């Protein structure tokens, strides 16, 4: 038999839409795509990841508008520029990145990372902690481990005034800006809403 010609060599597509629900053999979209909002499937992979509190992810209301997202990050830049003492909650990859970036660019600002666990970037090998600590020391980033921040009702002020950040061990840090870099939550709404039988067809890379 002659070789079969592939009619469309690149049939795969990126669909810009939000999936509202995953059903037994189709997903429902929040908008039309090629004349339908229902896409049938033989197999589905749910890879919706996690949601981080702002600024890790943009606030949900701004999430899908690029211009609003840029404006949000610019406001954050202005807050960082105006601040003298910044507390970063969370010593994971994002908190560490944020702290070193700020201290690298603005050596005169006081930057403190508060980490709830014994090590920084605890999802990696402890040698990673050592590397981060040595870089923190070079730059002058302060860090506190094994301690959590007590978040006041209504959150921290964002007006630029100076206030005390209270830690669970009773210590206080004077700050005028707090950036949250902890508290990611899995986006598992699709799975929790899906009917049980869907699970036979679903592959969850990070369940």
């Amino acid at each position, binding site marked *: *038999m002659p070789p079969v010609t592939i*009619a469309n060599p690149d049939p*795969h597509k990126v669909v*810009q839409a939000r999936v509202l629900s995953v059903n037994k053999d189709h997903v429902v979209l929040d908008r039309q795509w090629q004349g339908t909002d229902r896409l049938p*499937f033989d197999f*589905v*992979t749910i*890879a919706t990841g996690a949601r981080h509190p702002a600024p890790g992810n943009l606030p949900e209301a701004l999430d899908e508008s*690029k211009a609003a997202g840029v404006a949000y990050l610019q406001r954050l830049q202005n807050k960082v520029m105006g601040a003298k003492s910044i507390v970063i909650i969370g010593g994971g990859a994002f908190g560490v990145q944020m702290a070193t970036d700020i201290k690298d*660019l603005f050596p005169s600002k006081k930057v403190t990372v508060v980490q709830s666990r014994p090590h920084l970037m605890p999802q990696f090998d402890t040698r990673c902690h050592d590397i981060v600590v040595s870089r923190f020391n070079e730059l002058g980033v302060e860090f506190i481990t094994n301690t959590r921040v007590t978040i006041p009702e209504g959150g921290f002020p964002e007006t630029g005034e100076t206030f005390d950040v209270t830690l669970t061990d009773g210590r206080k840090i004077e700050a005028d800006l707090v950036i949250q870099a902890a508290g990611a939550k899995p986006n598992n709404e699709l799975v929790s809403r899906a009917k049980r039988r869907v699970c036979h067809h679903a592959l969850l890379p990070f369940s």
Partner: protein
Amino acid sequence: MLPINCGLAYRSTWSFPEVAQPEVNVDTKPRNGGHLLGVHQEVNYKYESDRKVTVSSSHPTDDTLDLISVSTFVAISGILHIMTISTALKNVIVVGGSYVGQSAAQQIAAILPVTHRVLLIEPHSHFHFLFVFVSTSQWSIGLHFHSRVDL
């Protein structure tokens, strides 16, 4: 400080025009060693022969069906079969076009038979690279005020 991300290390066949994809020297051959066509053919032939067996054996006791109509049926079903393959692709859907979704979509696409396609569903027009977004926003003010280019 950026974690090496497998999703970006593969050849990107997706159109995320806003993303500055890092240039990484990777083997750009499909993961099955470049014999994508071979895989497709194999699947096709198997499917075709299965189909013929099904068609001829589903009517052997039907006395009203003469030889011509059987062969016509087989021919038409063959045409339909080819049309099915070229037009009605079955979907393998990946929900979420971030690190894991992109990587999954590319790896699945590399091994799918021609009967299937990958649909990667992602609400954003752009790739939200968690670290770069905030990082570059810090860098941009830093560059502006310090004129430092030591990235």
